[in-house]
């Protein structure tokens, strides 16, 4: 039957689902709200997880952070699958044209041999660090409580994999598969990279998922991305004919800028909840910051030579300022 619907204006019985009306009042809900709030099972869970019989399948007790409402962690980007994927697809398209542009204009040819080697030395081992970050975020998504905080971690995990894959393409563009082999060799055996690898492996056995979120997404990314992508790629290399590398890494800089908004929101909300949370977050941040700064020192040495200490110090200081603004005492 063909119906002409232009004349029909029917009044809905209700605007949204009750669980959203209870939170936000009876008004139309956004797709972010519909797809995220309260959708994880939280009552009458059936069986004991054989992989962790001490807790229920979904259990807020897997972290020492305590929240009255785990749906307080609104993502400022309001990412659900659709908006997340569309955003990344747009970024991917621009990354693709960046890679094409760099290739077609032979931009990498402007880089001196020693700087090309330096770029590979600094960036290639980070493929593996990004894979570590991917595993951490995937694990947080599995262990966390409440979709508002678990789904951004799943997205972050896929982003971490994307970063590792963009770095792989950078390596192939700057060198060849040999460049990837050398990067892996450095990650496994070069003294300069061992502190960072040790740190990443330590995070892989960190069992409190909120601590892991702090260590990975707040502290580690918060130091590594500014140091490597802002200071090294966009500033140092860019100033030495490395605009091509900078273009190929544009996703990473942009991504970190976006992720900061989210991780800041998470820390702020958790810290504001209680003094106990704030103390715990401060302690975690302090501990991981010190370990991370120490692990990045030899990487910074390789990247910046004599200026390493000063640059790492600037990055750390600005991270400290950021943490203080979020209510942490470092």
């Amino acid at each position, binding site marked *: 039957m063909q119906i002409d619907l232009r004349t029909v204006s029917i009044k809905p019985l209700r605007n949204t689902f009750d669980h959203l009306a209870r939170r936000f009042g009876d008004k139309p809900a956004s*797709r972010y709200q519909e797809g995220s709030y309260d959708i994880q099972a939280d009552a009458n869970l059936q069986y004991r997880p054989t992989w962790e019989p001490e807790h229920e399948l979904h259990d807020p007790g897997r972290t020492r952070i305590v929240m009255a409402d785990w749906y307080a962690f609104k993502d400022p980007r309001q990412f659900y699958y659709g908006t997340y994927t569309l955003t990344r697809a747009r970024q991917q398209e621009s990354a693709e044209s960046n890679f094409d542009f760099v290739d077609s204009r032979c931009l990498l040819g402007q880089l001196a041999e020693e700087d*090309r080697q330096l770029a590979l030395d600094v960036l290639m081992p980070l493929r593996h660090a990004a894979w570590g970050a991917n595993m951490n975020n995937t694990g947080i998504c599995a262990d966390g409580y409440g979709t508002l905080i678990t789904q951004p971690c*799943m997205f972050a995990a896929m982003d971490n994999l994307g970063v590792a894959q963009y770095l792989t393409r950078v390596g192939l563009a700057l060198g060849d598969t040999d460049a990837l082999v050398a990067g892996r060799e450095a990650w496994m055996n070069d003294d300069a990279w061992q502190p960072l690898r040790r740190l990443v492996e330590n995070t*892989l056995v960190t069992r409190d998922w909120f601590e892991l979120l702090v260590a990975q997404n707040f502290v580690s990314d918060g130091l590594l991305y500014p140091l490597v992508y802002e200071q090294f790629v966009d500033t140092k290399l860019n100033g030495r004919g490395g605009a091509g590398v900078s273009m190929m890494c544009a996703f990473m800089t942009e991504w970190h800028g976006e992720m900061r908004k989210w991780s800041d929101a998470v820390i702020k909300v958790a810290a504001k909840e209680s003094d106990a949370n704030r103390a715990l977050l401060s302690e975690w941040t302090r501990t991981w910051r010190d370990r991370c700064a120490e692990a990045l020192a030899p990487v910074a040495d390789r990247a910046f030579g004599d200026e390493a200490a000063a640059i790492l110090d600037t990055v750390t200081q600005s991270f400290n300022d950021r943490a203080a603004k979020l209510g942490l005492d470092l």
Partner: protein
Amino acid sequence: MDMSVKKKLGLKEKYALMTRDLGWEPSYEKHEDVFPLIHYEGLKIHDWDKWEDPFRLTMDSYWKYQAEKERKLYAIIDAYNQNNGHLNVTDARYINAMKIFLSAVPSLEYNAHRGFARLGRHMAGVGPQVACQMQAIDELRHAQTQIHAISNYNRFYNGIHDWKHMNDRLWYLSVPKSFFEDACTCGPFEYIIAISFSFEYVLTNLVFVPFVSGAAYNGDMGTMTFGFSAQSDEARHMTLGLEVIKFMLEQDPDNLPIVQKWIDKWTWRGVRLLTIVAMMMDYMLPKRVMSWKEAWEIYFEENGMSLFKDLARYGIKVPDCVEQIKKEKHHISHQAWTTFYAAAPMTNFHTWLPNEDELDWLSEKYPETFDTYYRPRFEFFREQAEKGERFVNPNLPQLCQVCQIPMLFTEPDEPTQIAYRQVEHGGEKYHFCSDHCQHIFEDEPEKYVEAWLPVHQIMQGNCFAEGDDPTAPDFDPIASVLKYWHIVPGKDNGDFAGSEDEKNFAQWRGMATSNQ
């Protein structure tokens, strides 16, 4: 630098560099501390690198193709909603199938999302990790697109206003809930056999292909779109299912009996779960594409059997339960619908008696059973209803300890006799709908004694509305349970005929087709 000397990498080589090459063997932490979950199930894996992901999607292609799917999907959902597309469905009874769908399925997808995230972290090889991670994020997509697509029905029709609350509480929804929570509480290898192989590869075609095609046939563009769009991800997931089983069986001959046990268990768990889909196909689609039995024959007996024939070279056998399912395919949809009809005051959707035309279709599709066993039931119900004495079963049913379905299934060879099985464990009695559910229990009693059976929970007093006092003289336990479920009796359930849904749909459709 001369770029042209570089060798061009093939898709497979490039994909290996983009995935497998990212991982490394930890040395600062012990392997078993980084991957603590991979040993306790007894499965032996010698070389994780033997895993091959045939689809080889890198993140850039993933984002690109998935975004295109999302754009199409939401464009159709938006258009469907803006044009009041719900008034275009064949008949408002159809919408009740969507109520069951929303009440049951997004929560399954969601649990699949979290379950695959666990595997994406804990499988000890980059190949399976990435495949599981992509599935994890896809499953979140499915949960969300289903909620978004069905959300508009909630604005105009009753019963799903609090679907998530009901999913954790309502009696019949403990069936899908327990299925997925069972899988999610398993170790990673059993989980992936349960979901990727048994559920995705062997069974989901039955839900998403003929049922969704049926939704299209009934004018539901929104459901057709999210259903098929989800299924396009499933094609990848099913491939993961097949890959994972090959991988496990090729790694060590000792894995065979373990894998076989899981296939047997999860094929049965899945088939029991699909009982409700059988009912939706045979009774809830006003225009029918094919019967449940036909769908079963195509997608399980033909396609499923090709799969088992293929796996025979590893020693995998067709699960024993298949013999019973072959017999039950003539019965289960009818048994389920008569159950929901008789339990109408306790559900969150409307039921009805099939009309003459529908009865004839059922007779034709089920020549061996319908006229003998089921048509007389509907005739009796109709007679009662016409006398103003609509039949309702006033009792709470006994549930199977494993599948949690009321014990409504009959003996495979005796369709008038309810099948009941019973065992004792730790001094307590446990009851089952079938040999297969009994065997599942006997294999892991410690797991299933913890089942949250809605009927027993109601009796224990755990399902009364907050604030109600069970010791008060005027306490009405059933009313209180309905309140606990957030169900409004008569409005959210009962007969479709005379319901607010029926009245509104007729009125709105009238507004759309006339000048009134």
